């Protein structure tokens, strides 16, 4: 297997853009990544697209060649990957695997979602399609409800509190306010976070990530060819994708994201590092409780210690291990199909030292964790300076 590097990154702003269609967002991100790498469309040997529900949100199918052609890229394999909110994480994992195996050299990976053209109950219903439609969803489960039930059980078993979850929201909003591409650049207080409108008890609107439009893209290449491209290459040191049951009621212990544990173990082994070595991370905070679970299941802290870890400020910009310096899904926004590749871009930006106001000093080894559904797909990637 050949070492693989990220040689170009590009993102649109995340937000609500009524005048933008899905294709134009994906094309903008892809062109930015190509420009960042100083790569030409004709150099791209394969196009991997992550998109969760374009057909449901905007009615468009056959998305990968449609978007590729929008960038002047034709005559290559162009394929869409769907793995719920881990769609572009899965696209990235498969693209890296293909380059590592020697199938292609220069590959473009893009993630995109266009969500804000539908009313909230419709968005809620489309997102619920990532759950078990014959069981939990028919009973009335939404994604906030599934993570609310995870939160309730975590509170019951480990004493996790509303304040600890709110601390995640306050921290991610503080970081998002410093990110020019974030959907919500607004600082919030602990009092506001605790007094939010209930969505699914105990989660309030401040525990939930945003419904956003947006796209993100990366160009990857074998490390041995990285010097042909502009900018500082970022090495993919470890990567893994694993699966678990889709239905929450089929999981033995809902306070643990089993796929995160299995994918993390493989990624750490591949990179030859331990959880303690990871200096910073972009984690999948679709809900505040999900960031707490991830810090535990990635091995940053013991099970049950994720809440106190967040409340103690260990994960804030000045903390011992900054998490979601981009603002996370909570404040940066969560155009679901764009999130996985967006995280790769944000980790790369920190390692390149280009994160502006939110730049951290200990930026050599970062991790991205992308989750699908209530944990049925997990992609964990470890990135470092090449």
């Amino acid at each position, binding site marked *: 297997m050949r070492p693989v590097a990220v040689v170009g990154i590009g993102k649109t702003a995340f937000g609500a853009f009524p005048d933008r269609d899905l294709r134009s967002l994906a094309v903008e991100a892809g062109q930015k990544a190509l420009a960042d790498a100083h790569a030409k469309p004709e150099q791209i040997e394969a196009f991997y697209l992550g998109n969760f529900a374009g057909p449901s949100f905007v009615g468009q199918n056959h998305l990968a060649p449609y978007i590729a052609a929008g960038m002047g890229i034709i005559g290559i394999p162009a394929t869409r990957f769907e793995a719920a909110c881990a769609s572009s994480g899965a696209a990235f994992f498969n693209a890296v695997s293909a380059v590592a195996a020697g199938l292609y050299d220069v590959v473009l990976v893009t993630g995109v979602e266009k969500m804000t053209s539908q009313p909230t109950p419709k968005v*809620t*219903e489309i997102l619920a399609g990532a759950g078990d439609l014959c069981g939990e969803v028919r009973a*009335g*489960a*939404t994604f906030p409800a599934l993570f*609310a039930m995870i939160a*309730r059980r975590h509170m019951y078993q480990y004493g996790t509190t509303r304040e600890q979850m709110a601390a995640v929201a306050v921290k991610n909003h503080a970081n998002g306010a410093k990110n020019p591409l974030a959907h919500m650049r607004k600082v919030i207080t602990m009092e506001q976070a605790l007094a939010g409108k209930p969505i699914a*008890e105990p989660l309030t609107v401040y525990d939930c990530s945003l419904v956003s439009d947006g796209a993100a893209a990366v160009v990857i290449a074998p490390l041995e060819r990285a010097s042909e491209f502009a900018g500082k290459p970022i090495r993919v040191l470890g990567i893994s994708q694993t699966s678990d049951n889709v239905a*929450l009621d089929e999981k033995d212990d809902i306070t643990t994201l089993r796929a995160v544990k299995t994918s993390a173990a493989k990624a750490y082994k591949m990179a030859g590092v331990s959880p303690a070595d990871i200096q910073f991370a972009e984690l999948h905070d679709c809900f505040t409780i999900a960031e707490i679970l991830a810090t535990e299941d990635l091995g940053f802290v013991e099970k049950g210690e994720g809440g106190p870890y967040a409340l103690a400020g260990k994960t804030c910009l000045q903390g011992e291990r900054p998490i979601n310096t981009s603002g996370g899904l909570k404040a940066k926004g969560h155009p679901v199909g764009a999130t996985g590749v967006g995280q790769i871009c944000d980790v790369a930006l920190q390692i390149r030292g280009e994160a502006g106001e939110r730049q951290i000093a200990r930026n050599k080894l970062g991790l991205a964790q992308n989750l699908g559904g209530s944990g049925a797909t997990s992609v964990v990637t470890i990135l470092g300076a090449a």
Partner: protein
Amino acid sequence: MTSPGSGTVYTETVVFSPPEAYVNDVPYQLAIIQLENGRRLTGRIDGEHARIGDKVAFVDFRNNVAFFRKAA
């Protein structure tokens, strides 16, 4: 459909922001029930609010969804 019998609340939530199909039901309590047969089932709680650990009894199926009620 056969009755899932009674069980214990493994976890629960009250939903305020519904999917399109249930806009007229909110707020409603959703729960994962640990059944006496060892399996778990996601269903609704009717009537009095139930907490983790509470015993619940099966009431009926409505549109293939199991409804439970807090046991006396």
